[in-house]
Each structure stands twice: as C-alpha cells, then as structure tokens.
C-alpha cells in the first residue's frame, strides 16, 4: 500500500515537476534601487541596485548575471552573455538588452552583515564603453531610460533561476544653467530703507541750507532766540574791543 500510495502521490508530483524542468525558477524579490542604503541612487548615466543577497541560495553552482533591458518583453532567457546579442556596445541601437555584472553566489553571502553597504553600481566602467572585445562591460547607460533589470542565474549556459523584472528605472536629466533666473533682481528692505532715509535727509539738509541762506544771508535773523543774547554778545565784543584799543594805543 505504501508503495501504491507513493506511486499514486508520486505521479501528480512528477506531472507537476515535468513542466518546471523545462522552465526557470522564479526567485526572490525583484531587483530594486538601493534607496534604503544610499541617498544618491541615480545619476545621469548610472544607477545603484541592492545586491541580490539571500535570493539565489539554492543555486550554489550558478553564475548570476544582471540583465539590463530597454524592452523587457523582447529579452529571451536563452540568450547567452558575452555574445553579440547581449553585448553592451550594441545597446540600445541593435540589441534591446545586455548582460553584465556577473558574479558567483560567493560574492553575495547570506545573510547580509549589518552596517555594510552592499550595492551594485550599474554604469561604473567607463574604460570599455567602445571596446567590443568586452561585451559584458558595465558601461554607463546611454540615456535617461526607462530601464528594466532582472537577475538571471546560469549554470553553464542553462538558465536555472531568475527574478522578476524590476520597476522601470528612470535616470536623471540635467537642465541647462540658462534656466537659472537672472542675477540679483531683488531689493531687500534694508537697501530700500537706506536709500529712502538718506535721500530724505539730504533733501532736508539742502532745503535747510537754502532757507538759511535766503532768510539770513544778507541781514541778521531778527526773530531768533539769539536776538536778545545778540545784544549781549555785541556788548561782549565791544568790551573785547575796548580792552584791545587801549592796549593798541600803548
């Protein structure tokens, strides 16, 4: 019975496994920008992903590749890395996706140690952008995107596991500095206050000067408070002269 039971239970299991043997296992979370680890996850030609830690645990023999695509539906998992169909240098004119950043599971130990920044910078290799002998170059992205990425695990040349495609990744576009507003067009309150107050003071001074000259220029000013002490000051001058004259005579 046991055997019958096992044969009976084995049969549906075998039926289930058969299609899986022809397909690829879908693992782990989709690749994502490393927003939790870093502040600058995209620039104009690069972006930064979280490393696929603890995602391909069961595939110790596989080499894990990163697929970067502009058209995710056009990518065929059977395309091999390092071939002209997946060469970085032909992206995006002739091919719609390229494969790069290969690593073995040893590069992504699980679990991730706390406090370490574990990221993959896509687009950091600038030396091989035009070098066709390096089709797996991790070169700078040619435009703002959008790009989709996924990780693909290959054993030999057979794909065994993959993640789902990521969310579309848009890179930054830079504005021209001509879009900056023209230089210094505002006037602060302080500057307006200084200008206004000083202009008023100068105007008052000039008016007072003109008034003083006009009214008191030729004749003495009659009605000022000095008019009474004027006679006193005249007397003082007189006494001064009175003293001086006898001295001069002598």
């Amino acid at each position, binding site marked *: 019975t046991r055997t019958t039971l096992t044969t009976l239970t084995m049969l549906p299991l075998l039926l289930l496994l058969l299609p899986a043997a022809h397909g690829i296992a879908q693992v782990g979370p989709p690749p994502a920008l490393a927003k939790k680890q*870093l*502040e*600058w996850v995209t*620039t*104009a*030609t*690069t972006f*930064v992903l979280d490393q696929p830690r603890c995602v391909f645990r069961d595939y110790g023999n596989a080499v894990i590749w990163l697929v970067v695509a502009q058209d995710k539906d056009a990518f065929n998992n059977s395309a091999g890395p390092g071939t002209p169909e997946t060469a970085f240098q032909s992206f995006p004119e002739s091919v719609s996706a390229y494969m790069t950043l290969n690593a073995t599971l040893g590069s992504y130990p699980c679990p991730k140690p706390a406090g370490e*920044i574990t*990221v993959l*910078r896509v*687009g*950091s*290799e*600038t030396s091989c952008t035009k070098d066709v002998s390096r089709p797996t170059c991790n*070169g*700078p992205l040619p435009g703002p995107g959008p790009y989709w990425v996924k990780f693909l695990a290959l054993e030999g040349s057979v794909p065994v596991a993959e993640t789902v495609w990521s969310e579309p990744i848009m890179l*930054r576009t*830079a*504005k*021209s*500095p001509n*879009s*900056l*507003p023209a*230089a*210094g067009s*505002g*006037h*602060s309150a*302080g*500057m307006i206050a*200084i*200008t206004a*107050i*000083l*202009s008023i*003071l*100068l105007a*008052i*001074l*000039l008016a*007072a*000067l003109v008034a*003083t000259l006009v*009214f*008191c220029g030729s004749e*003495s*000013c009659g009605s*000022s*408070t*000095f008019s*009474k*002490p*004027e006679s*006193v*000051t*005249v007397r003082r001058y007189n006494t001064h002269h009175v003293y001086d004259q006898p001295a001069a005579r002598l």
Partner: protein
Amino acid sequence: MAKSDDCVHILQGLLVFGNVVIGMCGIALTAECIYVVSNPHGAYPLLRATENSDIHAAAWIGIFVGLALFALSILGIIAVIKASRTLLLVYIILMIITFAFEMASCITAATHQDSLTPNVFLKQMLERYQKSDPNNNSDNEVTKTWDELMRQNHCCGVNGPSDWQEYTSAFRVTHSDADYPWPRACCVLDAKGLPVNLDGCKLGVSGYYNSNGCYDAMSGPVNAHAWGVAWFGFAILCWTFCVLLGTMFYWSGIEY
C-alpha cells in the same frame, strides 16, 4: 541775559561734542574701509569674475569720506568756537558734499549685498569651473578659487553636490558623469589631496564626500563687509545730519 548766554554756550558745547564724535567716526570709517579693501575674503576672485566688485568702490569712497569727515570736524570745532560766519558756511557746504558721497557709498554697498544671490555664483560656477580653455585667465581663477573653497571649507558646489547633477556644466563636458558625478574636490581628501575612498565618494556615501553647499561659507564674509560699510556709514550720516541742522541753526543766530 545770562540764560541766553548759557543757551549759546550749551549749543556751542553740543556742536563741539557732535563734531568730536564725527571726527572719531571718520577715523573709524577710514580704518574699516582700509580693512575691507586690503583684506579680500576667499571668494573675492569670484566676485571680480562676476564683474560685481561694487563693494570695493564703496570702500574706497569710504576711505576718503572718513578722512574728509575728520578734517571737517576739526574745521567745525574751530568755526563753532570762533563763531565765524564764513568758516561755518564753508563747513556746512563741504559737509553736505561729503554727506552726498557717503550716501552714494552706503547705497552702493547695500545694493551690492543684495545682488549676490546664490544663483549668481551657481551660474558662474556651472559655466566656468574647469572650463577647458587654457587661454582664459579669469576662468582658471574661478576654477582655482572654487577648488580652494571646496577643500578648505569641506563643501561642494553652491547648494550641494546636487548642483552638478541637476544642471549641465562646463565641467560635465570634459568629465563623464559615471567617473565624476561631482568634482574630486567634493570628496573627503587625505593629507596628500587624494580621495579617502573614491568609490564611496562617487556613490555619495556620507563621510566620504562633502554633502553641504559652499554658499554659507562664502556669503558670511561678503555680507559682513557689505553691512559694515553700509550700515556704519548710515549711522554716521544720521548723526552728521543732526549736527549739521544744529550748525545751521547756530549759524543763523550769529551776528555779523
């Protein structure tokens, strides 16, 4: 009669005191403006490159105005004590002319300070930093000044490293975005002037690059100079205004 005598004496005393204060402030203004002229702050080459060095014009005027105020205050003291109409009239007219010059200096300094917004420096930096034209001296000065500013103050750009990402620049033309998301001077440098961790700097990991902008470090000295010249001059002028009104009143009361 004695009371009117006293009034005259009080007025004379006040005017003499006012002139003494003007004389001392004149000396102080001259000293301050000499300091501003001879002590350019680190960002001065950038100001010169923006063709906006009004603060220097204002400071030079301030030097001569200060000396004139000192000389005129001595003349004023003599004129008040002697109660001489002609001397006082000369004093008043010359003081009004000096007032006008100092007014020009104050307004220039205040306007200059207003015109130095962050965008002025940002535009200049984006257009001229590392512009690869070896013949243009002023561009090289801009580059050298910015490099020194960023290294000494541990800052990057005007508002931060985002300046280099948000805008295209002359720097971006010669330096690829993947290798140089921002200039090397924005990285934390060791004693030899090399980045401590180049990958960390390119990724923007805090501790390996300078994440704050240089505008605060630049605008501090610039504003201090401008405010020193503008507002101190304004204070002197207010005091001078009062003394001049008093002098005119005194003059109108003197007999021939």
